[in-house]
């Protein structure tokens, strides 16, 4: 008899559990939810920490690292408590993503540039110290540089001034915001060093994308996954390899790695802040305006970003490159007034 009582009890527990969650369709939420870029994720966490300290009694925001693209998709799902309030992005929102948002009723978005990050090229200490340019990197890792299949096996094949060492590049996978930046900041620039490619951009956009942004798949460019620590380990194990990752990882591992110069500029804090290093990119936070009134703490969390991104702020300490004073001032104003993003400025 004892056993059957047990079963009835468990069965009841299950029913109660399921019944208890049945009415959960439109519950309100008192924690801020942010999704998006894995590059912004550590910084968003720092701000969340600061938020929890500054506003005792409010729950710390929930931050999910999904990658910029996937985050935008979730963010643009619609308005309502089941959708995130904030999308972190390591690039600007795309025109297509904005349209997708608008289609789902998310028309009012606030765009805040919170700081900068550099995608930097690095290698283990005592590596090849290649003096690279965007064109060289493009020629080394593109699938079809300037329209011809990539046959380069050593750096010497790419440029006669480089040593005859085999090409091996560890870099971000195609789902990553870092990869988007690699395309935009390095590959496209290298590709457009040939005027014919620039012309192609107007005549055949698809072909242009294929030639300029596709990365070779024959094993010389290795997808190292979203885990940038893994790239650091691989570089240590193989001093002749080159890694492409966020600048904060280079900075944190300065005792093991050294940065590679691009166009003669080394990746340092200063060269990224003033954009003289070609791999610098701005980081953004997108806020859903319709949620600001409904979600407790959202306004305060956005304000916390503005309070954290200064030169001596916690974000700088966490490895983010701070934006120039003018950019900071503009975005601080946007963060307090919550000015809507003008879709006409998007690409």
């Amino acid at each position, binding site marked *: *008899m004892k056993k059957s009582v047990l079963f009835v009890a468990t069965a009841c527990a299950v029913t109660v559990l399921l019944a208890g969650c049945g009415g*959960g*369709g439109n519950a309100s939420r008192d924690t801020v939810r942010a999704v998006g870029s894995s590059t912004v994720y*550590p910084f*968003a966490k720092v701000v969340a*920490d600061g938020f929890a300290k500054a506003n005792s009694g409010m729950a710390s925001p*929930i931050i999910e690292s999904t990658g910029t693209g996937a985050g935008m998709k979730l963010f643009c799902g619609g308005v309502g408590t089941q959708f995130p309030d904030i999308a972190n992005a390591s690039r600007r929102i795309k025109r297509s993503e904005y349209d997708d948002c608008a289609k789902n009723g998310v028309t009012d978005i606030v765009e805040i540039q919170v700081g900068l990050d550099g995608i930097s090229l690095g290698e283990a200490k005592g590596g090849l110290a290649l003096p690279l340019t965007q064109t060289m990197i493009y020629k080394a890792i593109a699938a079809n540089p300037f329209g011809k299949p990539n046959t380069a096996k050593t750096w010497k094949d790419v440029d006669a001034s480089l040593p005859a060492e085999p090409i091996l590049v560890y870099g971000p996978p195609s789902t990553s915001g870092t990869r988007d930046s690699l395309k935009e900041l390095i590959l496209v620039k290298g590709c457009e060093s040939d005027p014919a490619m620039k012309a192609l951009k107007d005549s055949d956009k698809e072909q242009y994308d294929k030639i300029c942004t596709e990365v070779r798949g024959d094993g010389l460019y290795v997808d190292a996954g979203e885990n940038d620590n893994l790239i650091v380990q691989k570089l240590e194990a193989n001093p002749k390899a080159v890694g492409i990752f966020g600048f904060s990882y280079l900075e*944190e*591992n300065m005792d093991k790695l050294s940065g590679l110069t691009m166009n003669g500029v080394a990746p340092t804090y200063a060269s990224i802040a003033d954009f003289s290093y070609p791999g610098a990119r701005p980081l953004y936070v997108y806020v859903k305006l319709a949620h600001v009134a409904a979600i407790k703490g959202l306004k305060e969390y956005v304000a916390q970003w503005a309070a954290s991104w200064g030169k001596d702020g916690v974000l700088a300490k966490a490895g983010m490159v701070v934006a120039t004073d003018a950019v900071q001032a503009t975005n601080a104003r946007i963060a307090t007034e919550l000015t809507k993003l003008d879709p006409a400025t998007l690409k």
Partner: protein
Amino acid sequence: MSEPSTPISASQAKDPRFAARLKKRYTSERRFRLLGLGAVVFSALVLAFLIVTMTSNAIGGFKRAELRFPVDFAGAALTLDAGQLAAPDARDKLKTAGLADVIVIAGTKSAGALAASEISDSAWGEVADRLIGDPDLLKSSLEVSVPVTNDLAAALRGEGPEKLRPLAASLAREGKLVSRFDPGFLSRSDATDPQAVGIWGALKGSILTMAVTLLLAFPIGVLSALYLEEYAPRSRWTDLIEVSINNLAAVPSIIFGLLGLSVFLWIFPNYRSAPLIGGMTLALMTMPVIVISGRNAIKSVPPSIRDGALAVGASRVQTVFHHVLPLAMPGILTGTIIGMARALGETAPLLMIGMRAFVATPPDGFTSPSSALPVQIFLWSDEVSRGFVERTSAAIIVLLAFLLALNGLAIYLRNKFETRW
């Protein structure tokens, strides 16, 4: 053995061919035994290697660097009396009264300005909790031990920023900067500073998730196993169901994650990252394991038990619940624990339903957002800051300990219910 074997005649035994054959047989016997022993030794070595490297890394993870110095609260100008500390907002009061500054000033006096500037931002909170616990401390001088920043902690290990290393070495010599066992690691939640992180949030998330999984998968699994074994007629349909369940048990876990994402999160859109959804998803994965092991356990109950019960007039239900199920219970429990252990270590489906978030407060129920142990390990392994390497190992040890506890429970229950016939 009662049959007399044909005796081997002396001439046969002396035959060299016989001796060679006999030797060959013994050799193959010995070879097989050595191979088996080798396999066991190899797996034991792998396990030992894993445990030794993990624990040696994890020892550092359970510790943190703390700066020790006296704070004279009686002499400090804290505009507070002991009565105010009883109020619920005592922490805020202590903060506005400048507790953080008092600590930094005391730290400067004892260890110098550079060391004091490396006191962790969360230090005041820990001292505040101590004061709230015992307001009389406000009238005295207190020896506090507060966490330092990640940089100074790294310098103590000899790997952080160069400029802090001599300071860390000299403070360590004076006994002011020590690496101490950190019990708070088991009671705090995720944070950005590796010095301030804890595993409790993820552990609680895992416990809640497992509870949901068990509550759903166990009754459903056991009832299906009972029905299939005791009631269902053998037909094409039951064969089909059996094949489907066996297939379901072999489906990769990521598929269940996608199912959870598209079905459960579609029904309950507000419960992204909640243990409820995680538990439901993992229950789908665990249920077939329980059904299969349950059916085997029920099958192994001798038919004579059923016949005996029916013979003395028990109904089918009574037979099943009074006799068959209790006897099958040890086997069912073993299967359940194996399934649960697999679910506990599962990361992929939880990633799909959003349990990979940064959650700084432990979940307060089945529906609040939470993390889980394996996901926490995954997240920490991806951290920029190097202090997280040791913390990750420590989290792995906590996960292994939890698993061990589950398995221990399974063995205990099995022995308790086990019957021999």
